[in-house]
C-alpha cells in the first residue's frame, strides 16, 4: 500500500504518532491508578518517538536521518530508566498502603511482604529506623 510508503507514509506516521502521544498524555494526566500512569507514560514516550521518526523520514528520501535515529534511541533508553525508577517507587508506595490497610489480616503475610520488602531495600536500612 503505497499510502504507507514514500512521502505520504511519513505524513501518516506523523499523524499516527502524534495521535498516540496525545492519547498517552491524556491517559497519563487523568489516570488515578499509579501503574496505569506508568504505562501511559510509556505510551507517550513511544508516540513522541514515532513522531520523531516520521519527521526524520520526511526530510530526505533515502534512509532516515542518522542523528534523529540516535535521538530516538536515547529517548527510548531514558524512558526505560524512568520507568524502572517509577516501578520501584510504586512498589514502595503500594507497600505502605498494604501495611496500613491490612495489618491484622495476615500478620505473617505482612511479615513476608515487609521482610521481602526490607531485604530488597539493601541500602535503605536507615529508612527503617526513620519510619518508627
Amino acid at each position, binding site marked *: 500500500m503505497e499510502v504507507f510508503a514514500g512521502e505520504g507514509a511519513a505524513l501518516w506516521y506523523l499523524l499516527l504518532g502524534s495521535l498516540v502521544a496525545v492519547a498517552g*498524555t*491524556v491517559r*497519563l*494526566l*487523568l489516570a*488515578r491508578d499509579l501503574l496505569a*500512569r506508568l504505562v501511559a507514560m510509556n505510551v507517550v514516550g513511544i508516540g513522541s518517538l514515532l513522531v520523531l521518526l516520521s519527521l526524520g523520514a520526511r526530510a530526505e528520501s533515502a534512509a532516515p536521518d542518522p542523528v534523529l535515529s540516535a535521538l530516538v534511541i536515547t529517548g527510548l533508553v531514558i524512558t526505560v530508566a524512568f520507568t524502572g525508577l517509577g516501578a520501584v517507587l510504586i512498589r514502595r508506595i503500594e507497600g505502605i498502603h498494604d501495611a496500613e490497610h491490612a495489618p491484622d489480616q495476615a500478620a505473617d503475610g505482612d511479615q513476608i511482604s515487609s521482610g521481602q520488602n526490607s531485604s530488597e531495600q539493601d541500602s535503605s536500612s536507615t529508612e527503617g529506623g526513620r519510619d518508627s
Partner: protein
Amino acid sequence: MTELLFALSFLLPAGAAAAIACAGLLSPSTAHRVRRRAGLFAPSAVLPAGLLALSGEAELELPWLMLGSTAAVDALGRPLLMIAVLLYGAALSSITWLKLRDAERGSGALSAWLLVCFCGNIGTYLAADLVSFYLAFAVMSFAAVGLVIHYRDAAARRASRIYLFLSVFSETLILAAVVLLGSALLAPSEAVDPEFDDGGAPDAQESLLLEHVPAAVMDSPHTGLILGLLLVGFGVKAGTVPLHVWLPLAHPAAPPAASAVLSGAMVKAGLVGWLRFLPLGEDGDAGARDAVEIAAWALVAAALTGAFLAVLVGVLQKDPKVVLAYSTISQMGFIAALVGVGLLVPELAALTAGAAVAYAVHHGLAKGALFLGVPVVKHYGHGRTGVLVLLGMAGAGAAVAGAPFTSGAFGKYVSKEAVEGVTVLGVGLEDILPWVATGSTLLLLRFGWVMWQAERAPRRRADGELLSWLAVCAAGIAVPWLIGAQWMPEEELPAEPPTWEASVLWDAAWPILAGLALGGAVWALAARGLLPDWASRADGTVIAPGDLIVAEESLAVRAASGTVRGVEAAHRGLEDRSRSAAEALLSAGRRVRSWATRAETRLSAWETSGLVLLMVLAATALMWWWG
C-alpha cells in the same frame, strides 16, 4: 570694671541658687548645712547688682551669648534696678536671717527661687536686645511659679496653675511680637536706616537692639497686630484689668516676702516691657498712627477701669494681702494710664515715661514695705516695738496714698504735671488721677482695719524680718527723692521740683482727706448696721478674690471642652474612616487568600493539575495554529 559688675550681678545669685539646688545630692545633714549657709549668703548675692545701679550708666556686649546679646544700664533701667536690689535683698534677709526655729520649712528652696527670679528680673531691666529680654522675661515668670507654689497647699496649687497658664499665654504672645519685630529688624529694610551703614542684611547681633524696636514697630506692616500682642502680653504681667486675675490669687498664696517682690519688682517688668517696646513718641505713616491711637485709648480705658474697680473689690476683701494686691492693681492701673497717655500724645512721651518710672519706684518700695510689714505686725505689733511698727506702717500707707511730704506725693505730682491738657471723655486726666489716690486711701484704711484685728504671735527678739522691713521703710522715704533728683535725666522731669507752697500741698492733700471722710462715713454707717448687707459682710464672700477669674475660668473650661469635643469628633471620624478602609483591605486580602487556598487544594490532586496542563498544551497548539 562694669563688665565684672555685670557678670557678678548675674552669676553670684545664679551660683547661690545652684548651690542650694545641688545641695540635694549630698547627705541630708551636710545638705541642710549647705542650704543654711547659702541662705545666709543669699541677701549679699544681690549687692553687686546694687553697685552696678549706683555706678551709673554702662553697656556690655557679648556677641557669643545666645544670638549675640547686649546689656545696658540706662536711665529707664537704673532706678528700677535699684528698687529691685532693695526689695529682693529685704525679702531674702527676711526669710533667711532668722533663728532656726522661726525659719519657715523649705526656706532654702524659697531663697533659691527668689534668687532665680532676681536674675530674671534684673535681666528684663538690663537687657538691651530682643532675645535676652525675652530670655530674662521667661526665666522670671517661670521662676515665679516656684514662689507661688511654695506652701504646696490647695490654694497655692490653684493660684500657681492659673498663674502658669496666664504666663504661658503671655509668653507666647510676646514671642509672636518678638519674632515679628525680629524679622522686621533683620529684613534688609527698604528705607535703609542711616545707622545700618553696610546696607545689606545687617549682621544679626547689632540690629536686634531694643533701641530700634519702636521705629520697627511703626514701619512694620503689622503695626496693629504687634501693638495688640505687646499690650496683652505685658498687660498680663502688669496686671491690667481683664488679665489681672492671677494677682489677687497669687499674693495670698505666696509667702509675704515673695509677694512683696512679686508686686514690688516683678509687676514692673510689664511696665519696662511697654516702655521699651511701645512706639512712644515715634511718628509713622497714617495707618500706623491711628493703630497707635486705638491702642493708646484701649490702654488708658483698661488702666482707669482697673484703677477704680480694684478699689471697689479690694475694699470688700478680708485677707490683708488680697487688699494689698488690689491696691497694686489700682496703682499699676495708674501707671498704665501714664504709659497710655505717652502712647497717645507723642510730645508727652518722654515726660510720661519719666513719671511712670518715678511712680513705679515709689510704689515698689512702699508696697514692698506694706507686704513685708504683714508678718512684722503679726510678730512685733505690740509692746516696745509696737509703736515703731505702727509708725512704719502708717508712713508706708501714707506714701502709697500719696499724702504730702511723702514719696507718693512726689510721684503723683510728677505724673499730674506730665498729663497736662489730656482730656478723657471731656474730663481732664489730671482731675481723674487724684481720685485714684482717694481710692487707694480707702483701700489702705480697709487694710489698716483688717491688720488691726489680725491676731498676734509675739516674737521676743528682733531678727532679720524686722530689720529688713525697717530698711525698706527707710529706703521708701529716701530713695525716690534721691532718684528723682540725681538719676532722672532733665527732660523726663517737669519743669521745676515741687516747692511746698500752699497750692501744691492742697493738691496733694484733698484726695486723702476726701478718702478719710468717705471711710469715716462708711465706718459710722457700719456701726449703726445701716449698710446694705452686701457691704456689711466684707469678708470676701460677696466677690471672691480674683473676681473675674470665676467667670474667666468657666469660660476657658467651656471653650476648651468645646474645642476638644469638636476635635475629638473629627478625630473619631478620621479613625472610623481609616478603620473601615483597613477592614475593606483586610477582607479583600482574606478573600484573595481563601480563593487561592481553594484553588490550591483543588490543584493538589494529580488529575486536576493534569487537566490544567492539558489546557495549557491545547492553548499553545491553538496559538501556533492560529498564527
